[in-house]
Structures are given as structure tokens and as C-alpha cells.
């Protein structure tokens, strides 16, 4: 019989670490408006756009073997405008900008990461 306290402590550590990671990953970047959005399909880079260099909103269609995603890019941010996947989680994810969590469309094996210029952190490499 393991004491409840031990398990609860382990749990609290896991929760604390998770909260910390959430804050790091999801809080908006410190005023970075730049960054490069990289679009991966099945792990392969298919498109890349420098978010800072975008002056007017543009759309880009990504055709994956599983379906199509339409990306919309504005200065400093990107989102999935439309997709023909069943759950449309990628569309619901909304706008993302530098240093934030990636936009993912799992049915299409599509991932959009936004790397801050010059830095490619270990997770998205």
C-alpha cells in the first residue's frame, strides 16, 4: 500500500511542470512580430513564409495527400482559413504568431510552426 501523500506529491509535481510548460508555450511572445512560418506535411517542409515581410494578407493553398488546407497570412501572423478535414481543429486554432504553439491538422498530417528569426528551438527543429 502506497501512502496517498506520495502519489499526490508526484501528481502535484507533474501538474506544476505542466503549468510551467503551458505558460512558456502559450503566452504570447514578448512583442515579436517577426518570425518564419514553416508548413510541414508528413514531416516534410512544403512552404515557408517570412511573417514580417508580409504587407498584404495573402492566402496559400496546401494540398496534402489527405486533403486541402487553406492558409491565410497577415503581417506577423498566420492561420488556417479553411480545411476539408472532418474536425477542422486547425481552423478553430485561430491566429498564431511567433513563438507560439504550432497549428496542427492531424488528419492531413499538417503542422505549421512559427520560428522566431534565427532561433530554431529544439522542439520544432
Amino acid at each position: 500500500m502506497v501512502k496517498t501523500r506520495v502519489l499526490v506529491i508526484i501528481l502535484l509535481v507533474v501538474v506544476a511542470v505542466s503549468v510551467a510548460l503551458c505558460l512558456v508555450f502559450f503566452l504570447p511572445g514578448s512583442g515579436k512580430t517577426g518570425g518564419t512560418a514553416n508548413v510541414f506535411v508528413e514531416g516534410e517542409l512544403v512552404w515557408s513564409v517570412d511573417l514580417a515581410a508580409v504587407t498584404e494578407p495573402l492566402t496559400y493553398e496546401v494540398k496534402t495527400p489527405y486533403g486541402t488546407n487553406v492558409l491565410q497570412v497577415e503581417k506577423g501572423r498566420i492561420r488556417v482559413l479553411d480545411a476539408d478535414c472532418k474536425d477542422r481543429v486547425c481552423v478553430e486554432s485561430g491566429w498564431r504568431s511567433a513563438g507560439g504553439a504550432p497549428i496542427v491538422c492531424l488528419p492531413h498530417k499538417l503542422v505549421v510552426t512559427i520560428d522566431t528569426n534565427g532561433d530554431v528551438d529544439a522542439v520544432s527543429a
Partner: protein
Amino acid sequence: MKTKRVALDALLTAIALVIFVVELLVPLPLPIPGVKLGLSNVVTLFALFACGPMDAFIILVLRIGLGTLFAGNLSALLYSLAGGFLCYFILLILKKIVSKKQIWLCGVFGAIAHNVGQMAVATLLTGTPAILYYLPVLILAATGTGALTGLTAQTIYLRTEKLFSREEREESDKRKK
């Protein structure tokens, strides 16, 4: 297999399936197909302690298989299986070291394991470790729902365990004869 046991397992499976299908009405804005509140784990947990590991496993596999069929989202099958198996494995280990007042903790760790399993499969299939960004969110959500389902399972088990322990005693008596 005793008829009574088959009937009980079938009943529990049916309950798990209903919960599974109904909770799909709640959309979660996370990019992993098959990520749900995981409420049907109440049944898995309960079955593990009330009926035994074998019954719990059968109910789990049936729930995932049939549930995915009913829900019409076959692509989620792999993720659900991975999550379900990892969860079951963790539950098996925990059952050995935990008392019946700590079932809720099993619920939490089982739920976390479930999401980790799904995330692992998702990372492998997309080939992009970047989606691991969502792991902390999933873990926190799992802690919450796991506590909920675990507490529910524990409460139900503690209230009804007299029904099941009698059964186990009858079965072991029969085996001795």
C-alpha cells in the same frame, strides 16, 4: 465463462459505449483526433477493481473498437488504442500498490497515460515533434477529468463492493471444489 460474468461485462461495456458516444458531443479544440474527456474510463476503472483485470481489458477493447465504429471516426482508432493500452498498463501496475480509497488517483494517472499514449502516436504519425507543445495542456486536462472519473468510480465501487466480493468468494469456493 460464467453467464453472470458475461452479462455483467456486457452491461458494463454497454454503459461505457453510451458514455463514449455521448461525450463526443463535446468538442475539444485540440489537434488530436480521439481526444475526449475520457469519461468512459469510469467503467474501466470500476471494472478493474470490481471484476478483475481480464474483464476490464475485455471491456476496454470492446469499448474502443465498437465505440470508434459507432462514432464513425476510424482514423481515431489507432490513437484511442494506443492511449487505452497505455492507460490500462499503468492501471495494472497501480492496482498492485494502491488501496481502494486511492482509486481516484488511478483515474488521474490512467487519464494522463491515456493522453500521453495518444500524443506519442500522433507525434510518430505526423513526424513533427512540434505538436508536443500540446502535451502539457493535455496532461492538465487529464488530471482534471481523471480525478473526476476516478472519484466517481471509487464512490460507486465502495458502495457496491459487497456485491462483488461475494461473487469472488463464490467463484474461488467453486474452484476449490
